[in-house]
């Protein structure tokens, strides 16, 4: 009995925090998503208008598709870069001091704010920016490349730049815990470098990849600032739909979009978790 009570008490602070700052706001968003709105007010109701408009609109489908596309491309690139960086740090750097030092080097960009790092790409990629003038000086191109800025390219570039570290950290973390003797064993058994990588390291790194994936996918799907600035407002993802609605006082409509986005992200995470049992692996 007392043991039971102590257990409850120990769990209570966290449960309370989660209830106040996670469960309650979500419940509020869900209920507001059924409300109605006029130009200047929102009124309690139970109607499906917001969802009807949202799910019936061609734009929603396109925007959700764009959101997934950004997430998928960013995921692939951050995984490729993140895995390579982590692999290099974990298996090619012998001394632990250097490993830690180089790992810290990876975090240096994070000493500046996200927005600053993102916006600093704009003068670099611009029509008369550093990239274009350098390429023209070298004689690589005759006219400035228009697609460098305010395009899908610049959006994805910024995403990869902002979020690769979220891939590096968990992958590096799991790689460091791989028993080196397993790799030796693989070599002894006659495996080539690629075979060791594919059949030993990758499977053992899966939890790290999965955690990194969850970070990157959820961040990209929710980020609207990057899309707005790097595409010059010419592209949209779901986050931008929500922020537009909020700007125009259409809170119920924004709430409905948020609920749909939340469900989508949860489904994606649920699917990811089918591939690996994180609790067991941790």
């Amino acid at each position: 009995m007392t043991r039971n009570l102590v257990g409850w008490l120990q769990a209570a602070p966290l449960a309370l925090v989660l209830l106040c700052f996670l469960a309650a706001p979500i419940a509020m968003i869900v209920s507001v998503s059924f409300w109605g709105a006029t130009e200047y007010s929102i009124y309690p109701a139970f109607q499906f208008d917001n969802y009807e408009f949202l799910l019936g609109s061609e734009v929603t489908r396109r925007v959700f598709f764009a959101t997934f596309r950004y997430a998928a491309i960013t995921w692939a690139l951050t995984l490729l870069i993140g895995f390579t960086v982590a692999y290099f740090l974990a298996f090619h750097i012998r001394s632990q001091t250097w490993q830690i030092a180089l790992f810290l080097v990876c975090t240096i960009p994070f000493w500046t704010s996200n927005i600053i790092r993102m916006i600093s790409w704009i003068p670099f990629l611009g029509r008369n920016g550093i990239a274009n003038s350098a390429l023209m000086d070298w004689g690589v191109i005759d006219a400035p490349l228009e697609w460098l800025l305010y395009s899908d390219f610049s959006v994805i570039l910024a995403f990869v730049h902002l979020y690769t570290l979220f891939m590096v950290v968990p992958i590096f973390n799991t790689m460091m815990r791989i028993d080196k003797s397993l790799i030796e064993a693989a070599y002894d058994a006659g495996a080539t470098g690629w075979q060791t990588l594919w059949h030993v390291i990758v499977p053992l790194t899966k939890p790290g990849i999965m955690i990194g994936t969850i970070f990157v996918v959820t961040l990209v799907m929710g980020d609207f600032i990057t899309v707005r600035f790097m595409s010059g407002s010419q592209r949209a993802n779901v986050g931008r739909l929500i922020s537009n609605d909020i700007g125009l006082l259409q809170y119920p409509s924004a709430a409905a979009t948020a609920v749909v986005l939340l469900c989508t992200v949860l489904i994606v995470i649920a699917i990811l978790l089918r591939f690996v049992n994180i609790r067991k692996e941790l």
Partner: protein
Amino acid sequence: MAKPKVGYTRRSLLASGAAVMGASAFPAPMLWAQDTKNITLRQFGTGVSNLNEVAQKVKEDLGITLEMTALDSDSVTQRAATQPDSFDIADIEYWICKKVWPTGNLQAMDVSRIKRYDQIVGIFRSGKLTPESEIAQGTAPHTVGFVEGPESTSFADSETGWMTLIPTIYNADTLGIRPDLIGRPISKWSELLNPEFKGKASILDISSIGIMDMAMVVESMGEYTYPDKGNMTREEIDMTIGIFTEAKKNGQFRAFWKTFDESVNLMASGEVVIQSMWSPAITAVKSRGIPCVYQPLEEGYRSWGGGIGLSKSLSGMELDAAYDYINWYLDGWVGGFLMRQGYYSAVPETSKDYMSENEWGYWFEGKEAVEPIANPFGDVMAQPGEIRDGGSFYDRMGAVACWNAVMDENQYMVRKWNEFIAA
């Protein structure tokens, strides 16, 4: 400079010792508790007119402390509509008034307490700048400028003696261009969609204003003539946004902008050579030594105006102080301050006392500058020999084709706008 008189007769009575003795007989504790010199009014609005210089000057002249908060247009609307007790004075745009007034958060102003009411320019009273001029389309300020009485939540058609907002600042907007990169005269709104500027044009991503720019372009292209640009039908909205969506798909636009800084950077960096713009943004580009012109166009201007509204909860001595503030506002100092930045004041004549002859000639009369023209912050805006884009006050404000608007189909328009941005 007229002397303010917030209960000053009562105060001067109280000030004399005898009156103080006598006053103890009156049950008027509020007069004892408060001094107008200590009144604080909380004002919020957009960055254009919520300037610290105004707060400093009003403190000097009237002793009223003005707490200024500058927000963007969307936040201004939200605050006025949802937090009525968080402000005393709302400095909002007329088209926002259409959204905010029905919430009942503002109180109507008694024009008999506005000393210079008769001198306020015609566009804010009858809608006509001069007796002959035509009333522009859109949410023209006079259509949301009056209500039937102090408690009314709907707008009146003509002057009633009860005003919603006192106009403070307004201007006529047009397209901004980079003459050095275009290299030929621009005279029509339709140039915004000219394929010559493919990938080098921009428009602003604020739907209520952007749709009006679009309508100016559509009319200029000869595609359609709107019965009222400021109040489109669903078909007209579809058609207007359709034309721009197609242009967008063909790569006409480089980017869209939402903030002042974005528009400045787009223009200054040469990403864009023609775009909708605001006049101070043009100045900001010019001050970097980059040529930029606020180009007057054949079809006229798209105009906007802002005004001061009083919170519903304002009463007693604070209300008196607010009226004093408004009367002071129209007395000319603020007008001169605004007009030396290229905006106009509600009572332009009074600003003359606070401007040099050269400044008045350049900004108001459209004459050539005889000496360098500087704005109130000391930046030189024009050299001798230059004239203001668009000419005199009457030339510019007389050529207004439409006002920023809130349509009956606003919600539909906003959804379509979102589709345009996502297309």
